[in-house]
């Protein structure tokens, strides 16, 4: 049996999905990103059933990817659970009436039931059931209220197969239903709502946006540092160091094996960052240096997504983003890029025009460093003083602005206008937020660690057989002459293609000055995307656009690197 969840964006489908299946999907709180659908299992009337979360649409006639996907999915379902937001009954019923015309049994989950009561909306469930001709069950997905009864009621779903109606007929029918089944009592704004409103008012909204940005940055940076200092580093030093030291002693007689597993020793000691062995650097970089920041970043991002703040940020920043040929919504993929550029590229799909998507993707690839790279920048450059980290971020912001303005002028095409729904703020259950965080952290571990484990020995091998030395002399004029870096730094640029964090770690033994670290950090961010990002960009923009984007990256990366080298930092 296949059960489909269908409903408007913001009706709470994804949370209901996790309530029904017990597993969590990354259900982002903004419309459009649910295009890659999620599926899970549940038991209904002692039978196993598949549950599928369809993309949120306002109408089956919706144009665009989401509408298409929703229509396709409806064709092979056995039962539809239509999730209706009780606070927007009138509008949400339009989709319900469309669904009732399909040849498939339907049950309505009247979600956000608690909020509807709070804001003075009274819905006569029996009357609504009567008028629609299908079962209606009030639910509160975020707290779990009514879910048990919904599950029990699923077998009672009814197929109406109403005759096809026109738009006007549906709206007039909705008018009748609303008139009979819903009573609205007027009531004044609560303090909470006034605070919520402040976040879309120009002046308080701008101040709040800046405060949130500062709070998020401080939390990610200092929270990550705290996890590193008080958990990750002590664990590695107390528990792992004795083990690898023992292995180091055991393999001392087999230099090749020692080089691969442990790497170089410094004064007979293992250095987790610089030794560059499979059991040292390949594990220490992802688990100790990067993971703490992955945890704090995705925790903060999850809060912003789940509370529903991000669309408000899109409204605040819309005017600025138009200067760069995008509308305000483009800020959301950009923020995702600070975690990992790959999902950020996918998230640009919510942008409507080709021009907008090209600019958004190119700017993310050029000027938005992922969490792995940022963790290493904070670790290596931060040692020399926070002002150098600030120079890196200020440079990237300037690059983002200048290239954005140029691309807006140079790229043909149009920039659509912003049109989004601002859903009310809500609090997600902690358990769901933690599960989502875990899914993302696990995603990082699954992707990053194997690549590190493969890349570290290969890089080690390339060093041992002298490949990098050959390249080094060839590229020395650019790397040393133009960028002012030691010629060995070119290896990092190559490695950045596989893992940005590994590339930064490769710079550690070179004893770079603060200025050289600033230059190399900026060049690594701008120069070339990692292979995973590159493949996604190829798929999303095609090879012609990709070549142009790469050209922009190489030229601007070199130019900015050379410029920073000339400046007295």
């Amino acid at each position, binding site marked *: 049996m296949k059960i489909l969840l269908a409903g408007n964006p913001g009706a709470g489908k994804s949370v209901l999905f996790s309530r029904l299946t017990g597993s969590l999907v990354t259900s982002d709180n903004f419309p459009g990103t649910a295009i890659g659908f999620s599926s899970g299992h549940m038991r209904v009337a002692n039978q196993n059933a598949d549950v599928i979360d369809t993309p949120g649409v306002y109408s089956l006639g919706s144009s665009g990817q989401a509408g298409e996907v929703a229509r396709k999915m409806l064709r092979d379902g056995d039962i539809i659970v239509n999730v209706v937001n009780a606070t927007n009954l009138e509008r949400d019923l339009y989709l319900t009436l469309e669904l009732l015309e399909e040849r498939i049994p339907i049950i309505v989950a009247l979600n956000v039931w608690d909020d509807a009561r709070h804001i003075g909306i009274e819905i006569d469930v029996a009357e609504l059931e009567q008028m629609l001709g299908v079962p209606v069950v009030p639910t509160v997905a975020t707290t779990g209220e009514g879910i048990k009864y919904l599950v029990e009621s699923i077998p009672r779903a009814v197929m109406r197969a109403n005759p096809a109606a026109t738009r006007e007929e549906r709206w007039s029918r909705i008018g009748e239903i609303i008139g009979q089944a819903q009573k609205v009592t007027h009531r004044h704004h609560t303090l909470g709502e006034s605070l919520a409103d402040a976040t879309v008012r120009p002046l308080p909204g701008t101040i709040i946006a800046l405060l949130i940005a500062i709070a998020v940055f401080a939390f990610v940076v200092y929270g990550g540092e705290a996890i590193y200092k008080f958990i990750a580093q002590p664990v590695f030093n107390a528990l792992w160091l004795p083990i690898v030291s023992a292995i180091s002693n055991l393999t001392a007689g087999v230099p090749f094996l020692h080089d691969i597993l442990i790497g170089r020793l410094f004064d007979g000691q293992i250095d987790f960052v610089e030794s560059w062995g499979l059991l040292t650097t390949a594990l220490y970089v992802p688990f100790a240096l990067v993971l703490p920041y992955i945890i704090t970043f995705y925790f903060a991002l999850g809060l912003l997504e789940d509370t529903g703040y991000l669309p408000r940020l899109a409204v605040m920043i819309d005017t600025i983003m138009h200067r760069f040929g995008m509308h305000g919504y483009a800020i959301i993929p950009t923020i995702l890029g600070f975690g990992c550029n790959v999902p950020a590229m996918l998230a640009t799909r919510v942008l409507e025009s080709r021009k907008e998507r090209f600019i958004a993707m190119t700017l993310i690839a050029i000027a938005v460093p992922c969490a792995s790279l940022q963790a290493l920048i904070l670790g290596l450059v931060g040692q020399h003083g926070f002002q150098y980290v600030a120079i890196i971020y200020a440079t990237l912001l300037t690059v983002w602005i200048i290239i954005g303005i140029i691309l807006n002028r140079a790229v043909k095409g149009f920039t659509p206008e912003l049109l989004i729904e*601002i859903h009310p703020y809500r609090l997600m259950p902690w358990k769901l937020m933690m599960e989502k965080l875990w899914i993302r952290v696990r995603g990082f571990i699954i992707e990053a660690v194997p690549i590190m484990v493969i890349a570290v020995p290969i890089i080690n091998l390339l060093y041992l057989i002298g490949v990098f030395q050959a390249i080094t002399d060839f590229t020395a004029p650019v790397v040393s002459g133009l960028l002012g870096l030691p010629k060995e730094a070119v290896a990092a640029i190559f490695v950045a293609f596989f893992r940005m964090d590994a590339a930064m770690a490769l710079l550690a033994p070179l004893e770079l000055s603060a200025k050289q670290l600033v230059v190399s950090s900026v060049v690594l961010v701008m120069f070339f995307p990692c292979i995973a990002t590159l493949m996604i960009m190829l798929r999303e923009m095609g090879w012609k656009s990709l070549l142009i984007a790469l050209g922009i990256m190489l030229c601007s990366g070199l130019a900015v690197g050379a410029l920073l080298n000339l400046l007295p930092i």
Partner: protein
Amino acid sequence: MANAVISLSNMRDGQQALVSTVEGGRGLVEKLTAMGIRPGKRITRFCSMYLHGPITIRVDNVQLSLGRGIADKIFVIPDGLTDEDTSCR
């Protein structure tokens, strides 16, 4: 003045009006209709961003933000009502 047709862009923050027509392509009209903006609906202009930024409006319990280009295409009839709770200060 109370019954003249004006575009949503020309409404004042806090002002209420009934939607008269939406003059855009079929795609835009359908999208706006599905999101809750259709003739006869009462909307409240809630707030607008600086420098010709997006306008946020309320229809029933739905809050929508739309760019000026779209607001220019939505025509409304103000009916003299304002909502003190939803002015933009």
